[in-house]
C-alpha cells in the first residue's frame, strides 16, 4: 500500500488505529492511583477540601501522550517504508559487468554480494547470465544459467590494475538483446562512452556506483630536506583526513610503522599534501607508504631507491692546490650529488668509520697503507669506490707495473691527449655501451668528447672490466669487483679539464646506473631501457604485498610504458629490481589524475542517489518507547512520587554513574587492580613463573609443569614456592620472579621493545630464563631447523644473552642439589646450553671441577619439554606419559631433579662452586 512516498509492509495493522478513541475513553476513566501515607498531622487536615478535582480523571495531556505512544507503536508495526524501491522484473539475458580493478577493492565483497543477488534473482526468473570483468582481455561472454555463475562469482578477485581501453569490448559484446548491470568503480576509463552506448543499444543499462570515497596515495618524493607526501580523493565533497603511515623494517628486521602524517583535505579539494621530516637512517628504511584504513592498492605506495639517500664521501686532491672553484676536481661532482645524496666531508680516515655507501676519489694517487687497508675492508663489505683520473694519477706510478688493489686496471705511463692543439686527430666520442655494461641502453650524445685520458694496459681481463669505451675502443670506464664491493675508474677527470662528459646529462645517468646517486624524479624510459627488471614484491588489488617468487623479469621498455600508463597485465604493481637499483611500479603515479565517470542521461545509476529506501519502523518504535518512558515519568509526577524518588534516587544515581564510568574504563581499573594483586601474590614467597605464549594449551602445560615442580620443591627442599604464575611480558613486572620458564611456540608474537628492555633488565639483575623449544632439539640448536628453533633465534636476537656453550660436565647445575649427568624432560636430548665459562677457568690440582664463573647463568636453553614432564593435574598425578614403564618414571624423576637443581641454582647461585675453596679453607684452619 502506498501513501505518497510512504508504503506499509503490513497495512492491515493500521486498523488498530480505530482502537485509539476507545483507549482514550478507558484511560480517561482511570485516574492515577493514590499513595497511602501514615501521617499524624491528618487531624489538622480533616475537612480541607481540594480546590480543583481535575486529577480525579487522567489529565488530557497525559491522554495525548499515551495515545501518541500507542499510535506510534501501531504505525511502527505496520512497517512503514519511505521511498520504497520499485522492482520491475526484467526479461531476457542479463549481463553483469564488473570493473574488477584495484579501485573496486575498497568494497569488493559488497560488489560481489550485489552481483550475487542479481544473479540469484535472474536465476529465479529463469534468465541466463554472463559476468564480465573489464580488467580481463576482451572476450565474448557466454550467457549461462545463473547457477553456473554463482560459484564463479564468489571466487572472483579484483586485479591490481585498472581496466584499460574499453572500446575493444564493444565488438565482443554478445549477439541479441540483453539487459546489463554495470558495477562500476566510479572512475572514468577510456572507451567508457562507447561501451555505454553499445550496452544501451542492446537493452536497459543499470549502473551501480559505490558512494564510498576513493583515496589515492601518490609516490612520495624528496624535496627541501623532507619527504613529500600527496594524496588525492574522489569524490571531494567536504573536509576529510587521511592518515598516511610510513612502514619499514626496524633494526631487528620486523616491519613496523616508522612515521605517520595526517593529510587534511579542504572541502572540495581533491588533493592534499604533507611533509614528513625524517632522519636519513629512518627514511632509508621506509619500504612503503599507505593510507590507514584504505584497503586498496591505490592507497599504497611502495618506495624504491628514489627515496634512499646514499652517504657519499668525496675526496679531492687536497687543499694544496689553490685554484678557481670551477676548476676544482670535485666541483661538478658536488653540484651533481648535493641534491640527491648526503655528502660527507673530511679525510679518508674520518669518513671510513661513518661507513659511507660510496667513496669518490677524484685524482687521488697516493694513499697510505693504513687507508688502503681500511678501504679494502670497506670494499669487502660492499662499498663502491669511484675513482677519477687526473694529472696526478697520470703522473704517478700507481698501478703501473702491477695492478694496484684499489685500481681496476693497470695504467700506461702518461696517458694520451687527442684533439688538442698540439696533437693529432679529433677529440674522441663515446661508443655505444655494450650489453654487458651497466650503462647499456643509455643514449650516447654526440657532443660528449674526450680530449685527454689515462690509458689502460692491455691486460687479459681488460675487456671484461671495461664498461664504457671511446669510439676507438679505448676504455673510458673500467670496473673491478672486490669482495662484495667494486672499484670503478673513470679514465677522465671529474671536472671539465679532460672531457666535457661531466658537463653532460649522460654523466648523471651513469652515476645513477652505478647507484651512486638516486633518482629524484620518476625514471624515464631511457633510464629503464636495455635492462631486465625482476619483480621482487608484487601488490594485489588490496595493497597487500607478496613475494614475487619465480616470476620472469620484464623488459625495461615495457616497464617504462607501465610506469607512464599505470600497471596492467604482465606488469603488476610492485618493486622491480634491476642490476644495480630498484624501481617501484605503483598503481598511482605522481601525476595520476582520476576523474569521476559520467553517465549519459537515461542510464539509471544506483547507489549514489540521495533518495534511498528507508524503513521507518525502528524510528517509530523507538519513538513509542520514548513516549512510554515519558508517560512513566509523568504518571509518577502526577502521583507525587517523583520528588521522593529523586531524593531517594540521588545516591542510587551516583552509584549508577560510578558504575557507568567504570564500565567506560574497565581495562584501567582492572589492570591496576590485577597488577597490584599480582605483585602481592608474586612477593608473598618464591613464585615460579612462565611466560604466556598466547597458545592456551602450551600455557596450561607450563602452568601445570611449574605446579608439579613447586610440589616437588616443597616436598624435598626448604624452598616452599607459592602457586606458579603466568607472566605477560608486555604488561607484568618481571622483577618479582627469580625464574622464568619460557616455552617457545613457532607462532609466538615478538615482544615489544619495552618488553625486551624489561627482559634484559631482568637478565642483568640476576633473573634466569629457561628457554624450552619443546621439540626434543632434533636438529641441534645451531641448525635452528625446527620452527620453534627458528622462533627462538628470532626471539632471543633482542635479548642480552652472553656467549653460550653446551653444558660442561662440571657445571654447577650438575650438583646444585642432586648430582646429575643428564637433564631429560619428555625428551632426552643431551644438548643444554648455558653461559660459557670464562676462558681462563682451570681445573686445580686434586679438584673435581674447575673454578668457574661467579653468578648464575642468565639463560638455559634446551628442547626437552620439561614442563610436560613436570606437569601434574589437580590430584598431583602426572598429566603426560614420559618414556615407557619404569624407565619412563625414572626419566620423570630425573626431570624433576633437573628442575630442582635449576631452582636451587637460581636461588643459591654459585654456592656449590665454592667447594673449590675447601682445600684452602682447610689449610687455613690447620694453621
Amino acid at each position, binding site marked *: 500500500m502506498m501513501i505518497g512516498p510512504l508504503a506499509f509492509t503490513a497495512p492491515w495493522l493500521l486498523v488498530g488505529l480505530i482502537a485509539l478513541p476507545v483507549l482514550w475513553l478507558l484511560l480517561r476513566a482511570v*485516574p*492515577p*492511583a*493514590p*499513595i*497511602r*501515607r*501514615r*501521617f*499524624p*498531622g*491528618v*487531624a*489538622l*487536615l*480533616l475537612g*480541607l477540601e*481540594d*480546590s*480543583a*478535582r*481535575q*486529577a*480525579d480523571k487522567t489529565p488530557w495531556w497525559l491522554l495525548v501522550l499515551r495515545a501518541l505512544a500507542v499510535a506510534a507503536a501501531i504505525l511502527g508495526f505496520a512497517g512503514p517504508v519511505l521511498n520504497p524501491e520499485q522492482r520491475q522484473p526484467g526479461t531476457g539475458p542479463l549481463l553483469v559487468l564488473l570493473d574488477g580493478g584495484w579501485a573496486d577493492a575498497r568494497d569488493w565483497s559488497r560488489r560481489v554480494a550485489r552481483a550475487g543477488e542479481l544473479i540469484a534473482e535472474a536465476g529465479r526468473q529463469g534468465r541466463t547470465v554472463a559476468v564480465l570483468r573489464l580488467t580481463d582481455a576482451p572476450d565474448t561472454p557466454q550467457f549461462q544459467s545463473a547457477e553456473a555463475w554463482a560459484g564463479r562469482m564468489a571466487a572472483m578477485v579484483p586485479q591490481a590494475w585498472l581496466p584499460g581501453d574499453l572500446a575493444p569490448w564493444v565488438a565482443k559484446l554478445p549477439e541479441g538483446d540483453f539487459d546489463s548491470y554495470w558495477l562500476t568503480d566510479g572512475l572514468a576509463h577510456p572507451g567508457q562512452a562507447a561501451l555505454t552506448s553499445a550496452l544501451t543499444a542492446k537493452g536497459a543499462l543499470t549502473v551501480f556506483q559505490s558512494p564510498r570515497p576513493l583515496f589515492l596515495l601518490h609516490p612520495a618524493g624528496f624535496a627541501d630536506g623532507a619527504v613529500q607526501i600527496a594524496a588525492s580523493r574522489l569524490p571531494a565533497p567536504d573536509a576529510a583526513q587521511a592518515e598516511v603511515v610510513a612502514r619499514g623494517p626496524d633494526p631487528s628486521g620486523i616491519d613496523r610503522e616508522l612515521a605517520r602524517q595526517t593529510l587534511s583535505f579542504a572541502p572540495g579539494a581533491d588533493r592534499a599534501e604533507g611533509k614528513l621530516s625524517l632522519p636519513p637512517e629512518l627514511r632509508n628504511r621506509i619500504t612503503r607508504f599507505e593510507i590507514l584504513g584504505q584497503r586498496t592498492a591505490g592507497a599504497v605506495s611502495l618506495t624504491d631507491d628514489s627515496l634512499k639517500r646514499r652517504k657519499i664521501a668525496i675526496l679531492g686532491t687536497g687543499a694544496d692546490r689553490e685554484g678557481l672553484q670551477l676548476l676544482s676536481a670535485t666541483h661538478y661532482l658536488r653540484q651533481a650529488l648535493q641534491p640527491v645524496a648526503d655528502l660527507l666531508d673530511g679525510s679518508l680516515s674520518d669518513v671510513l668509520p661513518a661507513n659511507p655507501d660510496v667513496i669518490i676519489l677524484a685524482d687521488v694517487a697516493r694513499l697510505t697503507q693504513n687507508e688502503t687497508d681500511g678501504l679494502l675492508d670497506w670494499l669487502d663489505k660492499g662499498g663502491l669506490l669511484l675513482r677519477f683520473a687526473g694529472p696526478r694519477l697520470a703522473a704517478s706510478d700507481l698501478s703501473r707495473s702491477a695492478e694496484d688493489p684499489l685500481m681496476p686496471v693497470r695504467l700506461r705511463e702518461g696517458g694520451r691527449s687527442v684533439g688538442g692543439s698540439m696533437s693529432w686527430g679529433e677529440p674522441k666520442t663515446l661508443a655505444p655501451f655494450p650489453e654487458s655494461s651497466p650503462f647499456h641502453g643509455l643514449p650516447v650524445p654526440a657532443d660528449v668528447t674526450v680530449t685527454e685520458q689515462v690509458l689502460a694496459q692491455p691486460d687479459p681481463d681488460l675487456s671484461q672490466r671495461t664498461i664504457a669505451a671511446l669510439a676507438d675502443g679505448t676504455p673510458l670506464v673500467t670496473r673491478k669487483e672486490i669482495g662484495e664491493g667494486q672499484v670503478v675508474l673513470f679514465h677522465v677527470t671529474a671536472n671539465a679539464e679532460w672531457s666535457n662528459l661531466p658537463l653532460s646529462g649522460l654523466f648523471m645517468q651513469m652515476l645513477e646506473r652505478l647507484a651512486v646517486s638516486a633518482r629524484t624524479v620518476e625514471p624515464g624510459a631511457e633510464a629503464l631501457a636495455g635492462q631486465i627488471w625482476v619483480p621482487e614484491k608484487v601488490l594485489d588489488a588490496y595493497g597487500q604485498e607478496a613475494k614475487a617468487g619465480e616470476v620472469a623479469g620484464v623488459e625495461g621498455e615495457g616497464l617504462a610504458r607501465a610506469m607512464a600508463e599505470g600497471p596492467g597485465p604482465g606488469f603488476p604493481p610492485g618493486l622491480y629490481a634491476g642490476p644495480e637499483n630498484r624501481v617501484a611500479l605503483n598503481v598511482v603515479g605522481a601525476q595520476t589524475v582520476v576523474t569521476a565517470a559520467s553517465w549519459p542521461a537515461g542510464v539509471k545509476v544506483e547507489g549514489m542517489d540521495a533518495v534511498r529506501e528507508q524503513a521507518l519502523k525502528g524510528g517509530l518504535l523507538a519513538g513509542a518507547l520514548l513516549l512510554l518512558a515519558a508517560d512513566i515519568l509523568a504518571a509518577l*509526577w*502526577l*502521583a*507525587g*512520587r517523583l*520528588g521522593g524518588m529523586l531524593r531517594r534516587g540521588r545516591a542510587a544515581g551516583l552509584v549508577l554513574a560510578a558504575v557507568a564510568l567504570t564500565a567506560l574504563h574497565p581495562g584501567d581499573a582492572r589492570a591496576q587492580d590485577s597488577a597490584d594483586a599480582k605483585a602481592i601474590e608474586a612477593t608473598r614467597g618464591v613464585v615460579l613463573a612462565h611466560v604466556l605464549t598466547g597458545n592456551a594449551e602450551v600455557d596450561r602445560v607450563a602452568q601445570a609443569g611449574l605446579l608439579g615442580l613447586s610440589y616437588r620443591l616443597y616436598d624435598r627442599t626448604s624452598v616452599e614456592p607459592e602457586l606458579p604464575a603466568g607472566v605477560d611480558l608486555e604488561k607484568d613486572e618481571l622483577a618479582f620472579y627469580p625464574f622464568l620458564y619460557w616455552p617457545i611456540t613457532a607462532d609466538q608474537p615478538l615482544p615489544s621493545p619495552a618488553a625486551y628492555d624489561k627482559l634484559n633488565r631482568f637478565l642483568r639483575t640476576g633473573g634466569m630464563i629457561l628457554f624450552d623449544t619443546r621439540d626434543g632439539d632434533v636438529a641441534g640448536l645451531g641448525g635452528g631447523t625446527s620452527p620453534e628453533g627458528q622462533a627462538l633465534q628470532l626471539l632471543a636476537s633482542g635479548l642480552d644473552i652472553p656467549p653460550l656453550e653446551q653444558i660442561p660436565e662440571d657445571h654447577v647445575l650438575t650438583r646444585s642439589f642432586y648430582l646429575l649427568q643428564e637433564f631429560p624432560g619428555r625428551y632426552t636430548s643431551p644438548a643444554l646450553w648455558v653461559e660459557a665459562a670464562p676462558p681462563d677457568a682451570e681445573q686445580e690440582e686434586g679438584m673435581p671441577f674447575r673454578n668457574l664463573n661467579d653468578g648464575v647463568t642468565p639463560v638455559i636453553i634446551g628442547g626437552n619439554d620439561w614442563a610436560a614432564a613436570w606437569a601434574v593435574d589437580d590430584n598431583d598425578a602426572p598429566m603426560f606419559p614420559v618414556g615407557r614403564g619404569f624407565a619412563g618414571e625414572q626419566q620423570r624423576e630425573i626431570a624433576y631433579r633437573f628442575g630442582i637443581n635449576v631452582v636451587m641454582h637460581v636461588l643459591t647461585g654459585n654456592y656449590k662452586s665454592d667447594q673449590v675453596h675447601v682445600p684452602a679453607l682447610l689449610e687455613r684452619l690447620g694453621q
Partner: protein
Amino acid sequence: MSLSAPSSADLRTRAEVLGQALPPLLAEAEHLAQTVMLGEHGRRRAGQGDEFWQYRPAHAGDSARSIDWRRSARSDAHFIREREWQAAQSVTIWVDASRSMGFSGAKERASKADRARLIGLALGVLLLRSGERVGLAGQPPRPGRSQVVAMAAALATGSAADYGSPEVAGMVAHGRAVFLSDFLGPLEDLETALAAASDRGVRGVMMQILDPAEEEFPFDGRTIFDSMGGSLTHETQSAGELRARYLARLAERKDRLQALARAVGWHFSAHHTGDTAQAGLLWAYRALEGGR
C-alpha cells in the same frame, strides 16, 4: 496493625525487647543530663533550708524566736536571719505514648516518641540529681536514683490510642508538671487536664514535639493520609495544594496551645526531632526552674 489483644507471650517478648532497649535509653538520658551544668541554681528566695540566705529587719508579726540576736546586738534594730528555701518539689512528667508519637518523617530520624522519652527521662535524671521528687504520670513522685530505673521501665510501655491525653492522676498539689506530646489530637482533654492541674496549684511546662515533616508537609500528588492508628483518614487529589492551609492550621494550633499555657501560667514550646535533644532539655529545665 492491630494492637487490640496481644497475647501474654507476645507482651512478654515485647517487654523483653523493650527492656533490652532500656539501658541504652538510660545511658543516653544520663549522658544528656550530664551536659547540663547544674552550678549555683539557687532557689533565690527565702524559705526553709540550711543555707544562709539574708538578714532582714524584723517586721511586725515575726515571731521573737526568729530574731537573730547575734546580728541584732551589733545594731539597734532587730534582724531576722533568713535561710534559702530548700524544700524539695514534686515533678510529674507525662510522656505521650500514643501511636501518633511513633511517627518519623525520615528513616534516619528517630520517632517523636523516642525523643519525648529521652527528654523526659533526662529531665527526670537532672531533677533527681538536684534532689527533687520525680515521677511519671500515674506514679507517685519519689526522690532518689532508683527512681530513674523505675521511670525508664515505665516509659517503655506504649499506648494503643491514636492521640494521647494527659493524665492528672498522681500530680501532687502545688507541684510541677511536664507534658511531652505532639498535641495533635483533640484539645479538650488537654484543657481539662490543665484546668485540673491549675486547680491543684500545679504549674509546669508543655513541650510540643514535632517531626520536621509535620512542620513542612513535603507531600504532593494524590494521597490518602491515615493517622498512625488508622482511626482518621483524609484523601486529597493534590497534597501540594493543601500545604499552605495545613501550615496555617498548625500555626493556629500552636497559638492555641500557647494561649492555653499562658492562661494557667504554664510554659509552652515546640521542639523538633530534627534538632538536638539537648536544646529541648535545656529549655525544659530552665522553664521548670523559672516557674518555681
